[in-house]
């Protein structure tokens, strides 16, 4: 067997026609689109379009860094971020200045080694602002650079704060670090996963325990034009395949909104939550 057409025919004969690939474009058109997309990622002239579209900068080949800072008086619904630093905020479970907020956007929920975190947002409170950094991969080749950038960001005395990170984001990142033969910088950090504490304290009567639901109920904040997180995989896929920036800026905004909501929700836990050290993950 030497060519794809022959294989396709053999498979079709044994198996029935192949499932639709989900793209309406003709094969040739798809190839052309794809080629164009690649050309744009590596575009030699000027700033790559992805960095431009996300208002970020390319810090390594194919890796875009988006930085934002929110003043401490910024409110998420009823709750301002300003309550956090300086004076130790009531109910906040750890030194707010040590908190490292984390949220990822991935290629899916399947788990295992075949899922990639293509956007990782980290948030940190300073004395005058809440700083957000998001790294976005323009392609798989940038993953090592992304992981390296994350590792450089972590401090030894950080307290990790996530929403559902214990079962989702952190194992996934641990897998990615292991795939690249890099030590996992998050392993061993104390980790506050807001999901269960928030649900215990505020979940009664809510339809579900999702971040957005808690954000509306607890903070009184309704997001405008928020892209559902479930659409993130498709958005990156469209970019990969066809080089369309498409919804990527929306995903970045959604990721930032999640981080902001986490920071605000941190103040609504009560003082009963203890931060337990994260269990050691991969060696």
């Amino acid at each position, binding site marked *: 067997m030497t060519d794809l057409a022959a294989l396709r025919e053999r498979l079709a*004969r044994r*198996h029935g026609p192949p499932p639709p*690939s989900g*793209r309406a474009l003709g094969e040739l058109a798809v190839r052309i689109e794809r080629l164009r997309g690649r050309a744009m990622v590596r575009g030699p002239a000027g700033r790559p379009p992805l960095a431009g579209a996300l208002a970020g900068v390319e810090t390594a080949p194919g890796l875009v860094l988006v930085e934002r800072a929110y003043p401490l008086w910024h409110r998420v619904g009823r709750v301002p971020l300003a309550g956090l630093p300086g004076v130790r905020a009531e109910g906040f479970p750890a030194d707010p200045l040590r908190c490292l907020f984390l949220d990822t956007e991935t290629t899916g929920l*399947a*788990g295992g080694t075949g899922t990639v975190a293509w956007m990782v947002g980290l948030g940190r409170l300073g004395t005058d602002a809440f700083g957000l950094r998001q790294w976005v991969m323009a392609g798989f080749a940038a993953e090592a650079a992304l992981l390296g950038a994350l590792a450089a960001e972590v401090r030894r005395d950080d307290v990790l704060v996530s929403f559902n990170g214990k079962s989702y984001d952190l194992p996934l990142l641990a897998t990615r670090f292991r795939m690249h033969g890099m030590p996992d910088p998050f392993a061993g950090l104390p980790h506050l996963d807001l999901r269960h504490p928030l649900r215990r304290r505020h979940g009664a009567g809510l339809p579900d325990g999702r971040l957005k639901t808690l954000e509306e109920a607890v903070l009184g904040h309704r997001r405008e034009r928020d892209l559902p997180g479930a659409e993130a995989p498709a958005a990156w*896929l469209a970019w990969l395949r066809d080089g369309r920036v498409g919804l990527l800026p929306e995903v970045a905004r959604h990721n930032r909104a999640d981080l902001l909501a986490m920071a605000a929700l941190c103040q609504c836990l009560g003082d009963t939550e203890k931060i337990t050290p994260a269990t050691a993950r991969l060696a």
Partner: protein
Amino acid sequence: MPPSLQSPEALDPGDLFAASPYPPSPETPADPTADAADLAEALCRTYGPRIVARVDLPAREAHWADFPEALDPALAAALRARGIARLYRHQREAVDHALAGRHVVIATPTASGKSLCYHLPALQRFRTQGKKALYLFPTKALAQDQVADLLEINRAGALGLRTCTFDGDTPGDARQAIRQHGDLVVTNPDMLHQGILPHHTKWARFFENLGTVVIDELHTYRGVFGSHLANVLRRLRRILRFYGADPTYILCSATIANPEELAAGLIDAPVEAVRESGAPQGARSLLLWNPPVINADLGLRASARSQTLRVARQAVARGLKTIVFANSRLETEVITKYLKDVFDADPRRPPRVAGYRGGYLPTERRDKERKLRDGSLDCVVSTSALELGVDIGALDVCILNGYPGTVAGAWQRLGRAGRRNRPALGVLVASSQLLDQYIARHPEFFLEASPERARIAPDQLLILMEHVRCAAFELPFVVGEKFGGEDLPTLLAYLEEQGVLHREGASWHWIADSYPANAVNLRGGADGNFTVIDVTDGRKDVIAEVDLSSAALTLYEGAIYLLQAAPYQVERLDWTGRKAFVTATRADYYTDAIDYTKLKILDDFERGGTAEAACAHGEVHVVRRVAGYKKIRFGSHENIGYGPVSLPDQEMHTTAVWWQLTEGLLDRRFADRQTALDGFLGAAYALHHMAALLSMADLRDFGRAVGDGSGTWSAVTGPDGRGSLRGLGGQDLGQALAAPRFRPTVFLYDNQPGGIGLAAPLYDLRGELLARSLSLVRDCGCREGCPACVGPVLPASARGGLAAREAALAVLELMRGAE
């Protein structure tokens, strides 16, 4: 397959209700000095004419070897504490290979101490190098048994090996600890495929230090399962390369013709073989037993069961530890009940007889195995559930109630009887079925034929493709990598087109939001099994599992589904959800599906013969439809009604071998085409059985059909016992008999979608296949045809025309022209 061709392969349900021909009678008390050799003599004296062959294997002495010099002292001490002061020669040989880093396959008989061949290297590597080990067993029960030894050695020597079982029952909180700290992980291929490889990063520490991989029960990995496992192992090796590990593989097999070839095919590397057992063995006799003819006209013999019971009663009465193997759960139950009536009539005494089959709960089975080992049971009646390496200790007598379908399977079961210092006896009782009778007439085929070759086809495109998907999920593929025998870049390009992979530069990345391993079932079609759920009186109990290929024939709405002799009626079939809801019933009938198979030749790969008589193999399109069912009364077998069935057609592309004759040839040989058609149906029946015998295979691994090759009609045996031409919906196409073009064709097709590589080797064997089929039909003791040659037929007087056997013989002779 037409229904009438099927019935001889199934147990006749009418038997359930027939009174036992041999009522229980008091037995003579046990003679403590009697052994299995005495029983063999007594049987030969009394039943000489029924014993068609006898083989005596002399006792064999033990061949010993010392422990390897470098053996860890603590390990050596542990072995001594367990009463093992030296090794059998084959154990030492295997250990030497493994410790020198050479992959090795051990193919010595049952109960020759195979597990020590892998425990020892695994423990030695753990003790001296801190290396970990992975054990793969096809089933849980086996894993438990083989690991029990290891645990005892470990305990005896305080060796510090942490052994963990990782399977579907392992609780979530234990999994983390196993991944992190397990030194020896026991699992099965399915778990490796779905639970471990796709999460290999969590196992990084384990894989980095992996020194030994053990694959026991190698002979079970043939056909579809073996082809899948070969690909799972390709994935494992890819992951191991990623972690820089290069373990030694130790494989163990029961008797098959080609252990080295199978092992090397599975692990894609050269393998040393250890085949000579150094374990001692008492003398053994094997009797091939054919029940006496009770109706010469019909060629009817006494049932195998009646003979099995006779032998079993004598064996148990003599105090010999006995195992009886039956080929169905139902038969197991019936034989158990009869023997219990004889030997366990007194409720105050502990039972001497027990049944053993797949449906019992694990705890019950463990209990029975223990009682067999410690000798408190005298007799066990079992299905193939006990065929594999489950440890039940040594037995004196093994009786096979019917040929189990493969030579290897028969030897493996017979191997259950055999002690180190006492004689043992095996008795294979032939049933009336074709293969049994063939072996009874040609004992040399069974006794001298090398056991079956276990074949795998790891590059079968559909299977390979599934695992390329899984592998891509586990690690991106890079340019220049190899995986299997097909052109990998083309497969990857196909998957890219399917939208599951994304190529970037020199690598292909998994991009779909799915977990591909979950869609692949290693043990058969990806479509999965049906569960049968008993909903009687609001219950909701899963009582059985049925594979997809038989579901359409047994679980249609209205069907009577028999489970352990109890009839259930199928109330509702959820085809897409793969569930059948049944209720217990008192129906006095059973049902028989009426199905039609249409075959169309797509492509012939090779063709031989003449313009008038051709044999070929190639690709075919198969459509099967179950159009309805018959209700048949138990006992009298009269047809008491019909029911409609509405099920989706089952379609597949697969490979086949076929024989086609032209109308010119047939018209010259036969007075009428109807007789020719009858001959084709009988020839197909004989060819099908002989093909299974000559290949490796179960009857079910092949489908058979008689059609015209272009999918217009197919032939089935009608209620009058004669062939009739039908369309897919069952409509009568009898007019095709008179058409100018009439080209009946016998198809034997590979019953696995895509084919698992059975057709091409069968084509190469076509000469022998035809010769054996001819002699089978020619030499049968019946007059007009019977289930042992051309299938169940009505006598010619009732059918009119030539006897079915003569017609089949004529067709087979014409087919010889196609060689």
